[in-house]
């Protein structure tokens, strides 16, 4: 909660600096507030405090910062910190946009700690609205405008569906907070009271959330929006929005609707997950634009994360999802930072821009290869650890889903090899020169690569953390 307040104040400060035309201070201030918020969260985590925030509306609190939400918000803050580090200095980034990113992060944190559907809805809105603006931040480009409009229309539509779902749920169970929902679904599960109102409500909410995480069949916005938006907005969508939506998703469905007997939503999630993995990878392997490719591969990765919902034990599921998200975010950050570096050299985001990267930029290429291996799920990277954790948990329950996931992985190799094809294998006559990287970009890439390799090689280190918190 303190972290949330700190970030909110930091965002306001950024906006203020924008008004005062002191934009060069904005990034340091943002970084500072994020660092402060992260340290507060870490201290709270270590002292094992649970922070309930009681805003009385009807009964029960609205927010509960337990360990899972603290860990999720820590992940979100860390990602934004790294994204901001890797940004080019002020010119491309006004202080107002920076403020918007921070506000959006506030939404993500709300989403990771809500105990009341109203808070969830607020979180989703706060998360999304700044993004509609950010997607259109390149005012002069038609594609950016297209992305903004598309994202806005589709986003508004899905939010409406989500809201409808909340209303149905309220009508069916008489409560909006997670505890009440849990009790109601427990009752229904054990007495076989199948209220159509509740079930359709759950499914409508599911649609809204699947839209936010970009899972098939609600994925249509993502490739266009990813491609059209400026890099900083795309990377934000690909990492933080996805992570935050998943944080809310698993909280609502595992805690709120987990007790529904033979949960209806489970089958929907499973089908969506299997299709996302297979079709996402298949579509990604045909792309020629790096950002579109990452959008489709992001859809496939979403599919894997959805598998985490299948497992039996809630805290295990959350933990597996966290590890998988950490891996996904680290790898995505590396690739996007490289795209950003190429972008500032005047290259497009076409895959061809990577041609001959390996000749003069060994460090970048190494990081790219590691990131891609992690996405594929090659052992000794965090990607494998995450996949292993998710798949073994799911195997007890739905073996064939794991088979679908493995088939999807096999298709997925082709996707990530596209990067190797251009970056490492091509024998072009004029390879890329040594690229200029700022210190921040170097730190981001090095940090992410380190996370991928370290956790990949020694998963016990974080497994011990798990014992600490859950």
């Amino acid at each position: 909660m303190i972290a949330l307040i700190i970030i909110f104040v930091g965002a306001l400060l950024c906006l203020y600096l924008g008004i005062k035309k002191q934009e060069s201070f904005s990034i340091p201030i943002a970084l500072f507030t994020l660092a402060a918020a992260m340290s507060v969260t870490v201290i709270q985590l270590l002292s094992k405090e649970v922070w309930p925030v009681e805003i009385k509306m009807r009964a029960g609190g609205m927010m509960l910062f337990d360990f899972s939400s603290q860990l999720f918000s820590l992940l979100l803050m860390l990602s934004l910190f790294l994204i901001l580090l890797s940004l080019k200095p002020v010119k491309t980034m006004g202080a107002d946009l920076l403020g918007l990113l921070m506000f959006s992060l506030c939404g993500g944190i709300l989403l990771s700690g809500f105990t009341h559907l109203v808070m969830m809805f607020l979180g989703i809105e706060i998360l999304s609205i700044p993004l509609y603006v950010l997607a259109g931040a390149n005012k002069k480009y038609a594609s950016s405008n297209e992305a903004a409009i598309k994202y806005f229309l589709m986003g508004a539509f899905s939010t409406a569906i989500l809201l409808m779902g909340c209303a149905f749920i309220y009508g069916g169970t008489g409560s909006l907070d997670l505890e009440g929902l849990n009790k109601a679904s427990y009752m229904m599960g054990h007495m076989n009271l199948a209220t159509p109102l509740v079930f359709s409500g759950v499914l409508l909410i599911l649609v809204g959330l699947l839209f936010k995480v970009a899972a098939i069949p609600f994925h249509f916005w993502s490739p266009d929006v990813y491609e059209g938006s400026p890099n900083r907005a795309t990377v934000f969508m690909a990492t933080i929005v996805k992570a935050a939506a998943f944080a809310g998703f698993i909280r609502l469905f595992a805690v709120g609707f987990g007790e529904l007997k033979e949960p209806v939503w489970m089958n929907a999630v499973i089908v969506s997950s299997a299709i996302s993995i297979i079709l996402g990878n298949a579509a990604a392997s045909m792309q020629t634009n790096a950002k579109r490719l990452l959008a489709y591969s992001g859809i496939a990765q979403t599919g894997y994360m959805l598998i985490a919902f299948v497992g039996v034990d809630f805290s295990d599921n959350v933990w597996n999802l966290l590890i998988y998200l950490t891996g996904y975010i680290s790898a995505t950050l590396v690739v996007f930072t490289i795209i950003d570096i190429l972008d500032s050299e005047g290259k497009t985001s076409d895959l061809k821009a990577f041609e001959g990267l390996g000749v003069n930029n060994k460090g970048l290429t190494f990081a790219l290869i590691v990131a891609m291996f992690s996405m594929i799920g090659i052992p000794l990277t965090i990607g494998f650890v995450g996949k292993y954790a998710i798949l073994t948990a799911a195997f007890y329950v739905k073996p064939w889903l794991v088979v679908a996931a493995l088939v999807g992985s096999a298709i997925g190799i082709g996707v990530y090899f596209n990067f190797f094809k251009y970056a490492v294998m091509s024998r072009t006559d004029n390879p890329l020169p040594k690229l200029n990287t700022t210190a921040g970009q170097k730190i981001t890439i090095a940090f992410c690569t380190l996370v991928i390799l370290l956790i990949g090689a020694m998963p016990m280190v974080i497994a011990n953390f798990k014992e600490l918190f859950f």
Partner: protein
Amino acid sequence: MELILISIIASIITYFVPKGMAKMVALLGAILTLAYNSFMLQSFVADGTKKFVFDTPWFSDAVHFSVGIDGISMLMLLLTNILMVVILLGAMRKEWKRESLFYSLILFMQAALIGVFVSNDGIMFYVFWELALIPIYFLCALWSETGDYKTTTRFFIYTFMGSLAMLGSFIYLGSKGLVDGHTFAYDNLVAVKLSTTESMWVGLGIFIAFAVKIPLLPFNAWQPSTYAESPTPASQLLSGIMLKMGLYGLIRWFFPMVPETYEFWSNLIIILGVIAVIHGALIAIRQNGMKRLTAFASLSHVGLIAAGIATITIVGLQGALVQMFAHGINVVGIFLCIDIIQRRTQTRDLTQLGGIAKQAPYFAALFLILVLGTMAVPFTNGFPGEILLLKSIFGYHTILGVIAGLTVILCAVYMLRMYQKGMLGGPSGENFDFPDLQKSEWPALIILSAMVIGMGIYPQWIVELTEASSENILNMIKETVEGVS
């Protein structure tokens, strides 16, 4: 454990030393590993139990970093480490671009291979199995002779799909096994009882992984072109050691995991193996590219080994182990000779070669020893293994045995054809000049041919080394089978 550490550290150091030093450091690393391995051999007692055990939780309690060496592992380790020194000696004759990366990948490969052969845990086995794929992929793709990465990518995708199937099977076995504790330990996975259907599916997954790597017949499409287009050290690694990963997997992991349906699988593998023997040999006879010829010859030999393993008899296993060791040495030697020829004449097309023996008698003699070894002439290393293998297949089914026995004749045909066309006869060109072996080429070839002869005269040590472990594995399979029926 220490072996893996030595080679990984050597690999890292190699990457960072300045140019020119890299090869010496790499060689030093390989020799150190071999020395340590021989040191371990000194105190090794081949009684069938695992020695040098090291075990610590890795991913979680279910997956340990668990290492243990029994006789079979020890044999494979020796093969890996000896060949690694030879391969490095062979590779050092050439200047490679991006030298430090090249040698560091080779050493990394060594670490991964050692990991495969010593691992005692299903997931750890998978991890190292995959790790071995990465350096070889880059070796083949970056230093490819044709500059075409498509073949290599095909190879990668084939093997990766196979491995994923294996991972699926292991996870399934794990989910049927212990809930708490070290679920994926070798002993626990073996102890899992499956129904016939389950056993078929689990077996299929593991089988695909190994069949791609070996390669058995329907899965061999990646092999010839990958061998032909890779740089020589990569071909040597692939054929000399990586193939043996698949065979080792058959012995150590496949049959003990699915004893419930072992009859079906051994029938299948023997038939596929025997078909591969004939198929590979017949194609090899028609080949003019020397590397392709060796690739098909290798297919044929490995088919025989796989069939021998699948008989699940002590004779078959021992023959397979002896022959695995011998095949590794022979094929690495032959690739080395082909590389020498190619460096001198810029071609490895048999139609354009000839008359080398006159100009380079020492080279011709050493090459002949390797060729004879491959043909399984008595008193070379190919002989004892092949006899044992054929005996085991005869015992299994007479007609299959007879068909497999043709390999001796066919092998002589294609190997001698290669030797005759390439080495004998008149000089192939006007200004044909083929200098004899140079200083840098001697050591590798001498080591190899000495081993060909040495093993041919005294193969008993392999049998002694692996006997107890092989019997252990056979007992494991039989116990379950009797328990089921």
